[in-house]
Structure formats: C-alpha cells, structure tokens
C-alpha cells in the first residue's frame, strides 16, 4: 500500500499510553520536530542526527519512564521459541532490532514478521540481529516461526512485563498492544523508537534506514 502523506488518523484521539506520568516526548532532542502525524501511521521518536549518543548514554532515572532514544534499556531474560532463555545482553557488540508486536497469527503481525524475514539478509549485512517479542508463549512462537519460515528469534514476554517496563504504548483506549520497534546499537543504547500499528512493513524500512547510519 503506497502511503505518502496521510491526513491525521481519526482514531489517533483514542490512543491511551500505558505510561501516564511521562510527557509524550522529551523536549531535549531537536529531531522531534521531524515526528510525523498520526500514531497509527508512524511516529519516529528520533532521527539519525543525535548529539554524542555513544559518549553519554542517558540512563532513565525515573522508575516509570519509558525507554526512549538515548537510553540504555533495562535488560531482560525471556524464553525464545525453543524454550531457551535469552537475555538482551547476549546481543551486546552488535546492533539489535527489537520489535514488540501484538500477537502471533494476526494479519499485521504476520505481515511484519514476513517483511523482516524477506529483508533479513539486509539486516545481517548491517551486522544486526532481529528479535520479535509478544505476549504469546513459546509454543505459539514456534508454530508461527515454522509456518512463515521466520529465521530470527521470537521471545515470549510472559505477562507483557517487558512491554510494560519499556513503556510500549497501547492503541485504541488500551485495547490493542502497541506495535513498537527499538533499534539498539552495539553499545546497548537505543537509537530509534518507531511506532506504527497499521503499517507494519514500515518498521523494516525505518529500521534499515537507521542501521545504515550506525
């Protein structure tokens, strides 16, 4: 679907972020003037022109502040589709594209997973790892990965704990888990946070674009 410049999505008004305490965007980063309109059709919470990101990673001081660009996200250990424990720290030394998606076997998530699969070689060329995570259990992930021949890791965010901890916002009055992707550089610093519920393939384009600049 070709989407160039879309009018503000009427359902944007219904978005309810999980995180009530923090403001929608930290004012310190000039790049936010580039953030485009609707939540459903893509908000980029950072651009590639960051001031000294790798020299001074900002750690979030507030317990409830969500993970945003420039932060070092809290680590986690989750089970993958084979039931093995996987920690975020395992990927240190190479960039990671960590994408949070609503659920296996739903149309948008399938499109997104297949889009990442089809561009997987490009991610590997950039030296990056792709990791998907949702609240589904390992057996659901295993079936999903097998059905669509997904070559990357899928993690089970049991109880959506990591999703909440990272502050991934929900859509439509909290009824829909948000679709948000983080690009973490090889030093473990978040360099891009991209949210787009209904144009899942765009997550691939945006993350690849960012990876080219790392």
């Amino acid at each position, binding site marked *: *679907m070709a989407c160039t410049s879309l009018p503000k*999505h*009427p*359902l944007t008004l219904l978005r309810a972020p999980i995180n009530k305490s923090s403001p929608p965007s930290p004012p310190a980063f000039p790049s936010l003037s580039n953030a485009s309109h609707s939540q*459903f059709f893509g908000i980029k919470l950072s651009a590639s022109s960051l001031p000294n990101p790798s020299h001074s990673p900002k750690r979030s001081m507030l317990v409830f502040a969500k993970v945003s660009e420039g932060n070092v996200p809290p680590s986690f250990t989750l089970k993958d589709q084979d039931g093995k424990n996987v920690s975020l720290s395992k990927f240190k030394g190479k960039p990671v594209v960590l994408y949070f998606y*609503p*659920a296996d*076997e*739903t*149309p*948008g998530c399938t499109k997104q997973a297949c889009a990442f699969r089809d561009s997987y070689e490009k991610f590997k060329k950039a030296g990056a790892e792709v990791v998907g995570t949702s609240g589904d259990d390992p057996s659901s992930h295993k079936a999903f990965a097998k059905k669509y021949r997904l070559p990357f890791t899928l993690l089970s965010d049991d109880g959506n704990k990591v999703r909440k901890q990272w502050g991934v916002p929900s859509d*439509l009055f909290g*009824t*829909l*888990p948000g679709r948000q992707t983080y690009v973490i550089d090889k030093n473990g610093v978040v360099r891009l946070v991209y949210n787009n*519920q*209904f144009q899942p393939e765009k997550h691939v384009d945006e993350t690849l674009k960012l990876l080219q600049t790392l």
Partner: protein
Amino acid sequence: MKPTNVAIDDPTSLRSTWSHRAWVASGFASVLTPLAKSAVAAADSGSVFEPLLAAYAGYVLADLASGVFHWAVDNYGGPSTPVFGSQIEAFQGHHRWPWTITRREFANNLHPLARAVIFTVLPIEALLDVMEAGAAAHAFVGICAGCVMLSQQFHAWAHEKARRVPRAVAALQAAGVLVSRQMHGAHHRPPYNINYCIVSGAWNGVLDEYKVFEAMEMILFFRFAVRPRSWSEPRPEWREEEEEAEEAAAL
C-alpha cells in the same frame, strides 16, 4: 456444517413465496411512508434543500451500515447464532456460490432485510411523530432504510453479467452511485477482507485504507479471543466454485 448449494440442490428455495412478498411489500410501505411525510412537510415549508441533504446523508450512511453488517456476518458467528444464524449461513454460501444470488427472485432476495427495516423504521418513525420532526428527519430515515433494504438488490446487480443488467442500473454503477461489479468483485477474493460495503461502495476506500475493520477485528481478538474468519483462508469445502463447473457437475 456441510455446505448446500441451494441453486442446484433446492432450486425452489430461490423463488419468492407470498410470505416473502408480504414482507417486502410491508418493507416498501414502511420506507415510503416517511418519504411521503417528508414530501408533504417540504411542500408545506417550501424548503427542499434540507430534506434533500438529509436524504443524501441517509444514502451515505446506508452504505457504511451495509459494510459493517456484512463485515460482522462474514467474520463472526455461524448457522446456530441466534437471530442472525440463517443470514450468516447464507453469506457463507454466497462466498462459495456467488452467482446464486442472481438466480434469486426479487422478494426472496430482499425479504430478510425488509423484515429488519420494518422493525427498525416503525419505532423510529413513531418517535419522530411524537417529536413532530420535520421533512429532513423523515427523508433521512426513508432513504437510509430504503437503501439498506434495496442493498441486496444492488448486491445482486453487482454479481450480474454486464449485459444482463438494466441500462439505467449499469449507468448508475459506472457513475459510482451503485456498487459496481469490479468494486464488489474485489471482495470475492480470499480471505474476503475488503470492500464490504454494497450500496454505493463509496466507503470502501476509506475503510480499507485506514484498516478500520482490521482494527475492530484486533480489538475483538484481544478482548474476546475470537478470530474473524477473514484471518484464515477459507476451508476447502467452502472455496468459491465457478458457475459453469458447478452446473456442469449437476447435469
């Protein structure tokens, strides 16, 4: 649930009965009454702009309503669902044998909608009478309900071969006033998840571009753990059959 092709197994079920005709006649009466009231009120007041605008709004809303209803019955429930069971089964059968709708006689095709329209319009009109509503309100109700009731005929015309559709209808389809064969044909492709509106089809572009139905499906999935049928490919026994192949098989 074994699908039955009524056109071949039970062709008499496509003909209109007197009960069907009675329902459709009553449906027309319940739609024409508010239109008549509107005409009288407009003549009295001398203003036609408002009722005409309201009529147009009714026509526009009917298209949206047809899409929402169509989406709901295509995706959820089954033959044993209360009230809607037979409609759901009919819509599923329609996906398998889409051409059958062109074999249904007029009242046979329209009577379920006529029934729904009667039971909706009568209380609304009663309320409007109590409120002494003007020409615009009656025009809106009459046109909206009328388009909803006739939507099944518009739907049938959208399945009919081009040469068999009355010239005036073909012109209206080409103008986008009525849903066209191409517009509706896009719905009849697995997994049947787009182009649900069947009055004019004008809403289809917006609804599909903004993934409105997909959003609703996701909400229902996360709320009630129910998957819509359009998320999976149709089961083999429900796949669409070509008209010629089916008729040949029946000979």
